[in-house]
């Protein structure tokens, strides 16, 4: 007595399972649904690792004057329109420098230096400007009121204010009018597990190899080895902000 309902139930389950497999097969066949199935159960990541200090090493001896490959890659990655006016947001810019005594020139990309002691965080009245556990200095747009104190405090002019309404933002890089923004060290890529910023990727792909990205705290990493062996400086080292971006050759 107890056997027969069980068998019937088992039979129905088997049939349902087969039907479901059939449906899944039909849906998966075009290949569109596969992504959605994968997205249905996203793996929750552990978050920013406090043992890590992300940084950049910029070799200015390899950085050609006038080359803006990194700037273009940065702006394309983060959905910024190519800046045309002085008030347009720019997360990265090229600065041409010249020593007047000797005439020696260099071209340096300048972006948020991701300081260990960031003055933008000190001055922010709402706590929107903050430093993540892995050393990346960011703006939390949910809290930013657009007062621009951080822009005044930053000695590197690394931050921009968005003056006008935006449309067509990238899903991974939300940005909008009334907030201050700056280089995020491609935080969306890092959180995805891709340890390469758009600027470093573009520079390497173009064959310049002037930008190296990595974990300064990991003695085995390429960037840690290079900063150990090469002479490198921090911009405005006298301010003792301990930037995570270092420059070789200036």
């Amino acid at each position, binding site marked *: 007595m107890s056997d027969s309902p069980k068998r019937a139930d088992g039979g129905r389950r088997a049939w349902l399972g087969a039907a479901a497999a059939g449906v899944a097969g039909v849906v998966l066949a075009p290949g569109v649904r596969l992504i959605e199935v994968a997205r249905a159960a*996203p*793996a929750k*990541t552990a*978050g920013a690792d406090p043992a890590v200090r992300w940084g950049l090493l910029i070799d200015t001896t390899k950085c050609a004057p006038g080359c803006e490959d990194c700037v273009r890659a940065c702006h394309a990655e983060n959905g910024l329109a190519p800046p045309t006016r002085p008030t347009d947001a720019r997360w990265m810019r090229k600065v041409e420098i010249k020593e007047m005594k000797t005439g020696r020139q260099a071209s340096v990309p300048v972006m948020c230096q991701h300081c260990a002691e960031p003055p933008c965080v000190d001055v922010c009245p709402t706590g929107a400007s903050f430093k993540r556990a892995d050393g990346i200095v960011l703006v*939390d*747009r949910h809290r930013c009121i657009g007062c621009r104190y951080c822009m005044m405090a930053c000695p590197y002019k690394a931050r921009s204010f968005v003056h006008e*309404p935006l449309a067509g933002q990238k*899903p991974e890089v939300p940005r*909008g009018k009334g907030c201050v923004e700056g280089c995020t060290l491609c*935080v969306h890529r890092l959180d995805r597990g891709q340890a390469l910023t758009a600027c470093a990727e573009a520079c390497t792909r173009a064959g310049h190899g002037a930008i190296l990205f990595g974990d300064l705290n990991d003695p085995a990493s390429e960037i840690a080895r290079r900063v150990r062996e090469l002479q490198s400086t921090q911009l405005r080292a006298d301010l003792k902000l301990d930037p995570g971006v270092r420059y070789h050759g200036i």
Partner: protein
Amino acid sequence: MLRGLAGALLALLVLPGVGVLAAEAAGRTPRPAIEPAQALTQCIAPAEVMRREHPAMLAHQRDDTVRGGVRGAKASLRGCIDCHAGAATHSVAASPKDFCVSCHAFAAVKIDCFECHTGTREGVR
């Protein structure tokens, strides 16, 4: 008899009023046109829970993500958009009939999510 008369009077007095109110309610504030979510997807919680709790879910998740770098949380705005984007606009906020906008217009709750976040499904520009 008396009771019947009172009932009729009441009906006469009240019903046209109700009728006018109902007409006004329907005319001034269109009922939200809730588009069905993308087929063969399952929401992260029952509809009653989502209706009431989605602001808290998203507010909690956004702090974890922006400040802590925790990605792939159960509740995510991109997750909402991927399933609920309208068939015509591929967005939850582009037209008054889209998923987020239709309900928020009805409830008179202004949201500013889509001033920074794109409301368009990923891969559609």
